[in-house]
Structures are given as C-alpha cells and as structure tokens.
C-alpha cells in the first residue's frame, strides 16, 4: 500500500456539510470557461490519437473522453525545461537575474486517481525531506487538482496495475475536488478545503441531489473491486526482495535484455523526478535551465574523469526499479510508482516494469 496518510488529509473536509455539485456534460464548456477565469487551466486535449494535458486557450479543446494521457500531468508543477537564471555575458562578467517563480493560482482538470496520488508521492521528495524545492512548492500550493474517476464501465488498460499498489479506480486521495461521470452528467465533490472553496465559487454548477451522492459513493465503493493485475505487492517486502536480488546480475541482464535505454519510460512517468541543470547560451544571451533527465541515459552518471559507475543498460534499469520500489520505500516510506501503466504502453520494446517487479517478488 502506498502510505495512507498524505499531507492533504489534514484538511480533508470534516463531517460538516460536504460540497457536492453537478453539471451536465453539454455544459462542460461553461465549466471550463469558469475555471479558466480563475487562472491558468490545464486539462486533457486530443491531439491526433493521443490525449495530453495542455494549458487551455480554447474552451472547446477540452475533452473528458479519454482513458489516460500519454504524458503525466507532473509538468504543471515540474516543467520539462525551465529557466532558473537568465543572463547576458559581458566582458566584465555576466549580468544575471534569477527568474521569479510564477505563482498564479491554477487548476488541473481531469486527473486520474493514480496521477493525483503521484503528486503526493512527489511532495515527499520535493517538500518533505531536507531543503524544500521552491519551484515545486510554489506551484503545488497554488494549484487545485480536480480528480476524475476511471469509467467503471470501460475495462482497465492491461498495462495498468494501480490496484496492486493500493490505488482504486475512483480513489479520491490526492485530489482537491473529485469528479465522477454519471450518464450525461458530471458529479463533483469537494475533498479538501481548497477544493471546496473552488466549487463554492463556481456559479455554473448545480446542486447535486441525495441520489447523486449515493451514486457517487457507490461508484467509489464498486471501483475498489476493479482489478488490473493480480499480484499484490507490499512496500517493505518488495523493497527487501530487490536489495536481495541486486547482485544477481544474470537475472537483471535477462529481464532487461531488450531495453535500448531510450528513457521514454521516465519521461512519461508521473513520479520520475531526476533532472539536469545546464547553461544554454546563444550570442551571449542565455539561461541556466533545469531539464528532465533520466537514469536510463549513459551520461547520467558519467563523470568528467571519464569514469562511469553505470555504463551498462542492465545497471541503469536496475537502478530505476530499485529506486522506485526499494530506495524510495526506505527513504520516504512508500513506493514511487502509481501503476498508471504509461511506461509499459510507451515502451518501444514492450518492457513491462510490473512483470519485472513481479518476477523479483517471486524469486
């Protein structure tokens, strides 16, 4: 199970009046417009075959007909590239200005339960341990997450395995507002104070009935039964198993033999947070930037001396799996994986991380 008491639970709404609203799907555009007025809105947008979260400029772009996005919504808090300092190089040194951290309140609409949970896992790393990352903190504090239950009628994607890490298809944890689809309607319930106050300020919403509330609760109850895979893994057991398997090189080589080290799995992952910091200069103007990076790349640990502690792919893949399912458990008390299945769906050589974890669990 992923740690049960996240930080958001503290301001989970008490027994007092719950804020419960609804809107018909035909009026989705009105809801989107109303949310857009509150600040930048990120929501799922269809682009060809893929659906991805984007900053919304046109209300009509938003779709709620999707299974899950190709990229995770982590970029809202942790963009793929971001300027930390902008500078101009001069003869007598550099003129430099730190880039202010944008703090406008924003909303993410339509986040699947596994992704909502991923934000809480990332909080433990960026906010919960040692120095606080000001970029993550600022955006996290100013963003309302509107979660969106998986459709219980549609079968789960075979790559998913969120149930095995303790997340349900209609899990409200990690969301500020949670959304369930009922025929032609969307039911929205406030989960945190932040979510409740957002809902209260949206005049486009109608009040929901007791019947709606019963449907909402029933969906959540029923969705606990949706199984994606069938091996239950527990944090501490898998953490210990992985440490034990570390030196069994032949097993790791065999399991990762087809990996080409492209790093796609880490870029689509909602809980991969490794980054690089580099300076990019063009004609004396430039910026110190941070970029997503990946432990799957050869040069990730390559030192200036030429020494590389992880020159081979199986070593890097083993690092990825051990980091997510073992080191993260020891360090932060939970697995750093939400079972969203993105890495498996996007892998060009069909490696399934859960099969690897399963294999190690059964060693």
């Amino acid at each position, binding site marked *: 199970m992923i740690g049960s008491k996240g930080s958001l639970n503290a301001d989970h709404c008490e027994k007092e009046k719950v804020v419960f609203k609804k809107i018909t799907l035909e009026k989705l555009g009105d809801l989107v417009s109303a949310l857009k007025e509150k600040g930048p809105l990120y929501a799922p947008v269809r682009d060809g075959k893929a659906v991805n979260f984007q900053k919304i400029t046109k209300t009509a772009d938003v779709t709620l007909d999707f299974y899950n996005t190709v990229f995770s919504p982590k970029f809202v808090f942790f963009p793929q590239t971001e300027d930390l*300092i902008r500078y101009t190089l001069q003869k007598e040194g550099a003129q430099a200005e730190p880039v202010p951290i944008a703090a406008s309140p924003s909303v993410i609409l339509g986040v699947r339960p596994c992704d909502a949970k991923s934000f809480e896992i990332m909080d433990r790393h960026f906010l919960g341990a040692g120095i606080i990352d000001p970029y993550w903190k600022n955006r996290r504090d100013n963003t309302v997450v509107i979660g969106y239950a998986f459709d219980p009628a549609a079968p789960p994607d075979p790559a998913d395995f969120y149930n095995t890490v303790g997340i349900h298809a209609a899990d409200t944890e990690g969301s500020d507002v949670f959304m369930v689809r009922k025929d032609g309607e969307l039911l929205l319930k406030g989960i945190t104070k932040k979510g409740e106050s957002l809902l209260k300020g949206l005049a486009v919403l109608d009040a929901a009935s007791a019947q709606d509330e019963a449907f909402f609760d029933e969906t959540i109850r029923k969705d606990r039964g949706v199984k994606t895979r069938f091996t239950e893994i527990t944090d501490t057991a898998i953490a210990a198993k992985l*440490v034990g398997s570390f030196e069994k090189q032949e097993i790791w080589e065999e399991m990762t033999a087809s990996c080409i080290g492209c790093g796609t799995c880490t870029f689509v992952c909602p809980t991969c947070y490794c980054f690089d*910091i580099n300076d990019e200069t063009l004609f004396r103007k430039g910026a110190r930037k941070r970029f997503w990076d990946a*432990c799957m790349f050869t040069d*990730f640990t390559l*030192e*200036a001396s*030429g020494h590389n502690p992880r020159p081979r792919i199986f070593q890097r893949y083993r690092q990825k799996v051990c980091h997510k399912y*073992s080191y993260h458990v020891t360090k932060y008390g939970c697995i750093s994986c939400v079972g969203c299945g993105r890495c498996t769906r996007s892998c060009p050589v069909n490696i399934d991380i859960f099969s690897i974890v399963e294999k190690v669990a059964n060693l």
Partner: protein
Amino acid sequence: MQNPYIPMPVEVVNIVTEVDTNDIKTFRFAFVNKEDEERFQYLPGQFAELSILGKGESPIGIASSPTQKGYIEFTVQRVANLSGGIVTAALHDLEVGARMGVRGPLGNSWPIEYLEGKNVVVVGGGFAFTTLRSLIHYMLKEENRSRFGDINVIYGARTPGLLCYKEELAAWEKRKDIRMHVTVDKRDETWTGREGFVPTVCREIAPSAENSVAVICGPPVMIRFTLPVFFELGFSKENIYTSLEMRMKCGIGKCGRCNVGEKYVCKDGPVFSLAELDTLTREY
C-alpha cells in the same frame, strides 16, 4: 524563502598554482555580499557548487577552514576532455578580480564531534588532500587543538612537484602538535624527504588503532591498498572515514543523479564511514 538553486556572487581575490604541471590551482573567493558570507557557515569536508554562468556548475570540496575568516578556498584540477570539465577549464582561465558564483555549503562534513577526544590519522593522496587540509587547519586552530588527541598526517603525491600546499606542509612540519609524514612515489634531485607509496608509509608508521580514527581521501588505487593496512592495524570500519565523489547537479538531494542505494551522495555524504558504505548497494 532562500532559493537553493541560485548561487551567491563571489570575487576571485587570489589564485595559487599548486603544482608544477600547472593544472591544479587554489582559488580564494571573497563574498560580494556580507550577508552571504554570514550565511555560508560550513565545516571541513563540505563542498559547494562553483558556478560560472554560460558554462555551468561544478561540485568542489572546500579547501579552506571555517577558522579562516573572510574568504573561502577551493583547489580545482582542470579536467577538460570529451566527457566534461567545461567549468573547471573556464575557472582556470579566470584572473584575480573576476566575479562568479558559489552555491553552498553542501553535504555533510568530516565527523568533527566524533573525532573529539580521539587521535586522528589523516591520510591523503594527490590533490584529494583539499578537504583534509581544511580539517587540519580546523584542528590546529588554538581554541580547537585541545579537543583532539594526537594528529598524524600521511600525505603523498606522485612527485614532489605534485604536492599541494607546499608552504603549509613546511610550516606544519615545524610544529610539535602535529606529526607530518609527507611522501612521494618517486623522488627527484630537489627532494630530501620520504620516498614510498602512501600504503607502505602507513604500514611503516603503524599508527595505533587505540582510540583513533583514520580519515582517508585519495585516488581509488591508493584507497584500495591503504584500507587493508588500517584493518591490519586494528582499525574498525566504524573508525575509518572517507569522502565519495560522484557526478552531481543540484547538490541538495533533489536531482537524483548521485543516488546510490537509499543515499544521495550530495546530501547524505560525501563523507561516509566504511561501516556505512558497507550497507550501500555494491555499485562502486
């Protein structure tokens, strides 16, 4: 909130070329802003990110001691090659008066509290002596000296010309409260001191393991041959400390690069006892 990714401005106030190959220099920086100097409270063994805009950042051990007020020093080797070294090359091209940035102090330190009341054996090889130099300065400071027992220093380089901090070594040789054993792998006509590899010298001197801690920093080959000597002398793994190197970026345990097992070398290290290293996954 102080942004941990933004460096503090410093000015290069002195540059010393340490070795006859000219590729190792000690840079002395003064903080441009007084409040940054006060914020930069460090202990021997910690490191900082040296920042040159347009080039990048490089994690380097602090070579000065917090007992030396008004400046910080870093001894840096120029390692420009295909896999990196952009920052160190740019640093070596700087002149006195140049402005750049420092981000830190970062990481843990040599175990100062643990060393108190104990004899300390300092073992260094080549230019990895930098944070050990910081430690020696710290322990030798009048108000600190009585907190530590006997201090033995074994320091070696390949040739006499490759020894760093030559004037300080000579000054320490003259003192009664520290025993210096400086050695070179291969002597030349200028050298009247000891000749021999660091592990061999350690065996000859044979410091007692009784109430003693060994603090070792050097190239991997030196460490590989030195450790068995200390085990033979009866030093436990809890009483041997070393400092790790690894590629780093953020220096604050966020970017994931220096992750080994459940540790981040930048935040949980770089200083570890051998007992602690034994619990990490065997990757290095």
